């Protein structure tokens, strides 16, 4: 039972990060109707930035800030430099081009840093705290949960309370009408990529030190988890991404704890197949709204 509580609570911490990474996918999907298959590789690149800055300055927080900024910049470059020029006649085209971005980024990282794992330091202990004789969350888990909660709150406020958030939502839902109303739709699209890549960078810096380890391919599995989260929650739904993240995080934590970590990707695959067969639009999809 103690073991179960420990797995459950640490699963929530992992799930919180998956939720954020999935949210980054949802942001681009809503803005551009593109599943950004390059998001994992982009986040790997920005995590190397965090690593380099932290190594040079000795300051974790500077590294985190640098990663988020680098993410925003990378999102801008990928959208303006590449994705914008893809013909949209088939939805596959943008997926294939994003795969090209994955290959370029991973190859550049491999050439610059090598394919070996690089250890990363974190500012808080990963040893679980004991509460009433039960090992629960570690200080690092608490930090992750707090950081994710603040990010979600900030994004929620941005989209519901600010003019730019309203413009971004309008541009995503109805680009043509939005242009007639004076919304610079193309700039909103770029902003969506920038924001999404920054959010993805943030999530990767939180999760890579704990389980994946830094490596050019570190985020391949993270992307698969996030994709699963987005499918479970529905690609259209930010709330779905949050809930889906927690579900996948707890599932992975339980599978890893009871059956071994090698089974984690298989468990996610099974979950993905089941959700796709049973409810392809996701559990929290805003589908009814879209059909109105």
């Amino acid at each position, binding site marked *: 039972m103690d073991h179960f509580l420990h797995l459950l609570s640490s699963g929530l911490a992992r799930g919180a990060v998956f939720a954020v990474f999935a949210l980054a996918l949802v942001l681009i999907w809503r803005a551009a109707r593109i599943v950004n298959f390059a998001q994992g590789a982009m986040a790997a690149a920005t995590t190397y930035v965090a690593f380099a800055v932290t190594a040079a300055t000795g300051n974790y927080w500077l590294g985190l800030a640098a990663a988020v900024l680098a993410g925003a910049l990378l999102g801008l470059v990928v959208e303006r430099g590449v994705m914008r020029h893809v013909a949209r006649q088939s939805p596959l085209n943008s997926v294939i081009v994003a795969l090209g971005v994955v290959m370029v980024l991973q190859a550049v990282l491999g050439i610059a840093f090598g394919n070996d794992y690089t250890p990363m330091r974190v500012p808080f202990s990963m040893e679980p705290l004991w509460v009433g004789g039960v090992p629960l969350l570690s200080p690092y888990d608490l930090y992750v949960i707090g950081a994710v909660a603040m990010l979600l709150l900030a994004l929620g406020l941005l989209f519901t309370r600010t*003019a730019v958030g309203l413009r971004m939502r*309008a541009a995503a839902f109805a680009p043509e009408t939005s242009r007639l109303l004076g919304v610079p739709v193309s700039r909103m699209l770029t902003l969506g990529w920038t924001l999404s890549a920054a959010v993805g960078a943030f999530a990767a810096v939180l999760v890579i030190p704990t389980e994946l380890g830094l490596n050019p391919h570190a985020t391949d599995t993270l992307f698969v988890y996030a994709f699963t989260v987005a499918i479970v929650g529905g690609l259209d739904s930010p709330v779905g991404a949050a809930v889906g993240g927690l579900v996948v995080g707890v599932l992975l934590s339980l599978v890893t704890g009871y059956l071994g970590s090698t089974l984690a990707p298989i468990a996610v695959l099974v979950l993905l197949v089941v959700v796709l067969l049973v409810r392809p639009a996701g559990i929290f999809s805003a589908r009814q709204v879209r059909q109105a």
Partner: protein
Amino acid sequence: MSAGVVAPRAGTPPEAAGEPLLDVAGLTAGYGGTPVLHDVALRVPAGDVVAVVGANGAGKTTLLRALSGLVRPRAGTVRLGGADLLAVPVEHRVRAGLAHVPEGHGVIAELTVDENLRLGGLWRGGGRDLRDAVDEVYALFEPLARRVASPGHQLSGGERQMLAVGRALVSRPRLLLLDEPSLGLAPRVVADIMAMLRRLCDDHGLTILLVEQNVRSALSVADVGVVLHLGQVVATRPARSLLHDDALRHAYLGF
């Protein structure tokens, strides 16, 4: 002219007497191969309601889309208040005073009534001025005031049309382009909408360019009627005289 949402903005020079607010000449536009509009000329005097009528496929929607920039014309000039409109990017035409309510009203179903309305005035930035404009629309269209927080997809057809026009008004337009506001609405609701347009014109001095397939309703509120046939203007007359010109009606309007 009373103050309110549709009053001209400060700093906008009043139109010179006799000069139309919208002046279209030689407009040719289309999609891909063959043009839909041929050499269209059109003048909309300030403070008038002009109705463009014609059969399905006459080019009415293309005309409005060319004016608001969604279709790039191949030839011709479009001047709004004397300024060249074609040089202005689509996103900036609302700043020039142009509001386009597109076919099928263009209410964004996922946003609430209030968000839809605010979107109309965001180009000026937020703040007090925007709030005032939105409140004036609520005063003008009371049904909307009761549904402030409802998402667009929950509204009735008439409410949606109201919301679309209201959102256009929030942008404080000089010229309102309306594409088939009667589409899919019950006759009673259509009558209400047309009466509302007339009121906006008479009481608030709004200039309206309306395209309609519902010829009778449109001409009953319009000052001037323009008959569009296969992409060409075949008649421009006072609306009343058009309604009573049997030959023209039979030839181009099918009733």
